[in-house]
């Protein structure tokens, strides 16, 4: 099925008789991209599913107030970004553990996950990404994997373009360093 434009989706959503249909289309249209981002952030599929559901439920309740001058995808992405960070914060609070323990847990989840198809180097890359602070991980994911423009990232994260560039630059350096160290260690 051909994707509908934001304005077409919104027009359908605002009519009572086609509201559910439009919402279903919206979920189908954006679920894969948002899932990919959330999954990279929280690692576990079940947790990613819960976060993704919350994202769409927030969209369901907030879409009436959505401004047509903004991009629907950026808006949904912003919700996904905030929900992912909230989820990680809650995880830390709930477990009463340090940042390092959370990284350990995420790594264990990754290693035991049956829904991870990457080879050795991919696994090492994911482990390195998990070692980044949450916000920096989000920045790295958006830029490296999604190749998003800094302006769009700024809209999503509410951070200045300069700060994002700096954060990404630092993240790239750290990951390159960790990967190189792992390669050296593994021979």
């Amino acid at each position: 099925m051909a994707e509908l434009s934001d304005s077409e989706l919104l027009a359908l959503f605002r009519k009572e008789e086609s509201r559910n249909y439009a919402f279903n289309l919206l979920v189908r249209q954006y679920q894969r991209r948002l899932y990919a981002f959330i999954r990279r952030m929280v690692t576990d599929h079940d947790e990613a599913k819960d976060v993704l559901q919350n994202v769409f439920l927030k969209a369901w309740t907030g879409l009436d107030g959505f401004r047509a001058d903004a991009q629907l995808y950026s808006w949904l992405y912003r919700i996904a970004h905030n929900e992912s960070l909230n989820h990680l914060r809650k995880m830390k609070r709930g477990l009463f553990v340090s940042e390092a323990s959370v990284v350990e847990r995420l790594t264990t989840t990754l290693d035991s996950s049956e829904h991870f198809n990457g080879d050795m180097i991919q696994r090492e890359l994911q482990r390195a990404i998990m070692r980044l602070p949450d916000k920096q991980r989000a920045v790295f994911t958006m830029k490296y994997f999604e190749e998003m423009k800094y302006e769009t990232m700024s809209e999503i994260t509410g951070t200045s373009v300069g700060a994002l560039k700096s954060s990404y630059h630092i993240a790239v350096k750290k990951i390159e360093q960790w990967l190189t160290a792992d390669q050296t260690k593994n021979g």
Partner: protein
Amino acid sequence: MKDPNTTDELREAPLLRSLSKEDPFVAPKDFFEFFPHAVQQAAYQVDRERRRHTPLFGDVSPLRLFGGAAALLTVIIVAIISWPSSVTPSATTTAEWTVDEMLYSDIDLEPLYAETGAESDLMDVVSLPEDDQAVLAYLESEDLPLDLLIEEL
């Protein structure tokens, strides 16, 4: 949305640059087929919950609700106090009335004459003769303003 300058930032990260960007995370089979239905059901649930928890007065704050109730109560009290009574006023009340008020009210004046004494002189009942000529004679004898009476008629 993709930024064409992305690769430039990886100049100093050759290892990272050499890696495939293919997503290694996979979702369970048919997950994206069933997920929209699950979200739709959850959305209905959210709507139902919201409707169930919406109070009678919606988003009205308790302070405003209290103010509204107080205003309504005041209006009711004022209305009760100022509502015209169908009970015949007592002599004490009617004693303060003017002659016109008494004339145009539908209360029985006879008992009042007895009580108000001096006022009763003003309220003498005039019995008019039935004959037209006699009426005219009476009006002339009483020196009543005939022109005004004719105009009224």
